């Protein structure tokens, strides 16, 4: 192990200045721009952002699953000290699924409709481990039971299961090789709220039992804030803010985070009027100079269109990239 920073658990994944570009005939589009964060062992880290913020692209880049024309154009992805970007095919194969598994949004599309879920679970096990088919089937049965599905369901086809059950099968599959990190990209977006809570509660429970870390990618900020301990907020490919979930709820620093939180209606409270964020999303082919949020920012000032803000530490595990907090101090500094 190379470095072990600060507190509790050792570092598992460190993303450093990650950049991803889409190479298009009209020019290269930088969709992830110098994103850096760290996930410690057993931690539940959330990556939030609206469409086009680059959150799924970051997840795919970590697993090196980007499809052309997307390429990683800079930065490092350190997995327990080793750079994933240097892995050869064999190490990459061992890294994917055994170390880091992936749960995608639509369980309907992630499962093969013409093969039973038992066979699909066995496929994962047999592809990565030297076991007999009988042993694999036993493992598959216990995996299903781990996610509260009767092992009699091994012979079921995906269409015979409800959406929630299918998503649980996909989670069982992701846990098949006891990974250290599970990446979940919008795992419950297509599901009803009660099913969503059941599944996330189950992941909380399994995490406590098995000790894996989670990288949750979602647009649903309320869900993320309840589920994760540390959260990164992306805007137009850049990290706007990185903070413990509790602090992000009580004391968001970046104007984008503040505006985003203020535009989510609360079913539990009477709200007279919410603002939303004026303007439209950034066109990444022609991103604004300086801070990418400045054209929509209610607190923008003269330097915002000129100077690119850097992530500035504001407290333990709390950083924001906004000129309001940088040195030399802006005219309207607050701490």
């Amino acid at each position, binding site marked *: 192990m190379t470095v072990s920073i600060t507190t509790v658990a050792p570092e598992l994944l460190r993303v450093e200045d990650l950049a991803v570009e889409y190479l298009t005939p009209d020019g290269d589009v930088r969709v992830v721009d110098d994103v850096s964060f760290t996930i410690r062992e057993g931690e539940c880290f959330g990556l939030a952002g609206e469409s086009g913020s680059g959150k799924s692209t970051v997840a795919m880049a970590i697993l090196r699953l980007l499809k052309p024309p997307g390429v990683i154009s800079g930065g490092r992805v350190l997995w327990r000290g080793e750079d994933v970007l240097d892995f050869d095919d064999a190490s990459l194969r061992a890294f994917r699924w055994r170390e880091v598994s992936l749960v995608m949004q639509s369980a309907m599309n992630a499962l093969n409709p013409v093969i039973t879920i038992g066979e699909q679970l066995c496929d994962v096990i047999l592809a990565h481990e030297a076991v007999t088919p009988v042993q694999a089937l036993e493992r598959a049965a216990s995996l299903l039971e781990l996610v509260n599905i009767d092992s009699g369901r091994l012979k079921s086809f995906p269409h015979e299961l409800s959406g929630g059950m299918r998503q649980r099968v996909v989670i069982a599959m992701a846990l098949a090789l006891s990974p250290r990190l599970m990446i979940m990209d919008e795992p419950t977006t297509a599901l009803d*709220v009660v099913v969503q*809570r059941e599944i996330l509660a189950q992941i909380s429970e399994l995490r406590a039992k098995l000790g894996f870390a989670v990288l949750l990618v979602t647009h649903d900020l309320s869900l993320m804030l309840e589920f994760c301990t540390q959260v990164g907020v992306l805007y137009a490919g850049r990290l706007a803010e990185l903070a413990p979930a509790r602090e992000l709820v009580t004391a968001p620093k970046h104007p984008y985070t503040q505006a985003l939180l203020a*535009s989510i209606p609360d079913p539990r409270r009477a709200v007279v009027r919410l603002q939303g*964020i004026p303007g439209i999303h950034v066109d990444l082919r022609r991103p604004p100079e300086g801070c990418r949020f400045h054209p929509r920012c209610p607190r923008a000032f003269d330097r915002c269109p000129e100077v690119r803000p850097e992530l500035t530490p504001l407290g333990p595990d709390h950083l924001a990239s906004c000129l309001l907090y940088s040195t030399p101090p802006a005219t309207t500094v607050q701490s």
Partner: protein
Amino acid sequence: MSENLAQVTPAPASAIVSPAEQPLLQVQDLNMVFHVRDGLKVQHLHALTNLSFDVRRGEAVALVGESGSGKSTAARIIARLTAPTSGKILLDGENVLARRRATLDFRARVQMIFQDPFGSLNPVHTVGYHVERPLLRHALVGSRAEAKVRTKELLERVGLTPGNEVANRYPHELSGGQRQRAAIARALAVSPELVLADEPTSMLDASIRVGVLNLLRELKEDRGLALLFITHDLASARYLADRTLVLYAGHLCESGPSGQVMDEPAHPYTRLLLSALPDPRRAGGVIEPPRGKSGAPRLIDPAPGCAFADRCPDVHDRCRSESPTMHLIAPGRLVRCHLYAAGSTQRPTLPS
């Protein structure tokens, strides 16, 4: 008036809070049964069962429920895109189902906005074409030149400025939120009295969503537009709607002023839904399981009794044998649950 009824009195489904004035829209005992072919067998899927409610002029009513609750089916029937199995839909007291097809007059009074702004605008036509078409079709303008002027005004009304420039753009050149605004402008072209909005904001990002909700709110306030807002998102329902109706398995299980339904949910299903919503104030990395079961309701050959019985934490014998009726528990608050029947001593156990 129904407000005079004593609390916890069974109310007939048709006696839904009727104020002195005649409601703009009255939905009465709407039933929808789909015939589903399974091999040689034809099965009956009960999508809506005896649904009744009113929408008053200038009122926003939210119809909320999970997938399969029948909320979109209700909207499609009211928009006359599908014919119901039985029931009445009265617009200003007149049963619109008496005519076999929707009349032009009906379309001028009732308009619909769909969920998918990418699918509801024709990609080969400009935004302006979509808004001009109803103006010309309904003969609301005398000339094409006048149609252009009116289109510009409509687009600017929904926040698409400059209107004449946006009119020349194609749908793919607009963002999701802008496209939904264009769809709203098209619906407004005929100056409808009622707009049916089926999940109009669920495909939009959070920062954009509020803008569209605010626009609908302004149109309601400025033009006295009535809205039937179909959504699965209770937060948006509370934000936009004066009243909220909760649907489960095609049955109306609770209705009332939105704030009251959310702050003091009466039906065990509403309580479960609200308790399952993510709450950022519980931030901390652990998700508690919901206080009730998930599971799709049985819409084909439904069991006797209450549709929610299998998932209900407060289920008792009566729920399995007898369908609950509507009970008026407070002015304007209706609940379809045996817990509120006269003589019942039980009350819901779930804290809300």
